[in-house]
């Protein structure tokens, strides 16, 4: 029965991230990652939305009247099956009430490691193409999110944890900390993680692919 270990090689990466973040709260059973994620969120103050999402996560979600969400689902299902991947695609309820325009898709199954790809490359490509297919010219833009086995949400969690750690450091050292260039999505995660963090403000600086988040300590 070595089958279970074969799937997402990427899993190791996540675990390493989680360990490095050092906020190992509770004991280690299958629930512990979940607990850790929530603990980290709560510590930053933005925990409520996150918890709500987790609760809703496993409910069946099939918005019959949302033509474009169904189109996204159908497209992704066909592509994944033609890639010969042993995976299922589901629609997920959008995270918060204010993001009704979001279409969340999640891929699960033994081949999700391949679906994620190196550094989430394949996942990114699937998301990009789904976006192109759903957001035809002349239609209201819908935000498309494609995740696999929680890869993105875990990455977001560890990025948020890192942001808070650096936030603390910025306060202690009284110096501005500048991140490496990141995509808009990742920058948003950092901004949100530090939005309610005392003693610092965040802003983005630079253009295009060179845009970086800065953590700036403020005097109280």
């Amino acid at each position, binding site marked *: 029965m070595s089958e279970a270990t074969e799937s997402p090689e990427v899993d190791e990466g996540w675990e390493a991230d989680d360990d490095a973040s050092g906020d190992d709260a509770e004991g280690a059973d299958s629930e512990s990652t979940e607990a850790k994620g929530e603990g980290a969120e709560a510590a930053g103050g933005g925990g409520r939305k996150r918890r709500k999402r987790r609760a809703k996560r496993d409910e069946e979600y099939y918005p019959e009247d949302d033509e474009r969400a169904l189109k996204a689902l159908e497209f992704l299902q066909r592509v994944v099956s*033609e890639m010969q991947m042993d995976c299922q695609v589901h629609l997920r309820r959008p995270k918060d009430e204010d993001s009704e325009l979001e279409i969340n898709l999640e891929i699960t199954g033994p081949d999700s490691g391949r679906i994620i790809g190196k550094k989430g490359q394949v996942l990114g490509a*699937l998301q990009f*193409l789904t976006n*192109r297919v759903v957001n035809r010219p002349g239609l209201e833009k819908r935000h498309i999110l494609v995740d696999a086995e929680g890869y993105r949400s875990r990455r977001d969690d560890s990025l948020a944890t890192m942001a808070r750690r650096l936030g603390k450091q910025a306060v202690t050292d009284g110096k501005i900390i500048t991140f490496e260039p990141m995509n808009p999505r990742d920058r948003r995660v950092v901004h949100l993680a530090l939005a309610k963090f005392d003693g610092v403000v965040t802003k983005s600086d630079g253009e295009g692919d060179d845009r970086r988040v800065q953590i700036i300590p403020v005097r109280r």
Partner: protein
Amino acid sequence: MLKELITTIAEALVDDPDQVEVTEVEGNHHGAVIELRVAKNDIGKVIGKDGRTAQSMRVILAAACTKVGRRAHLDIVD
């Protein structure tokens, strides 16, 4: 099968799916060459800004190839 994958994606991207034509040519040691042809007006849709759409199709094709143990290259013919 790799051909069907590219056909599915291309047909979903373009305005004129009837004009999507995909052929698989047995290439050299680099594996198969998948040739994609679309209506003239749709070329931009399968290439995308800065070639991002084409790049995404290639990433997905490569992932499918590793799964089935093959090699293939996507060629957009105009």
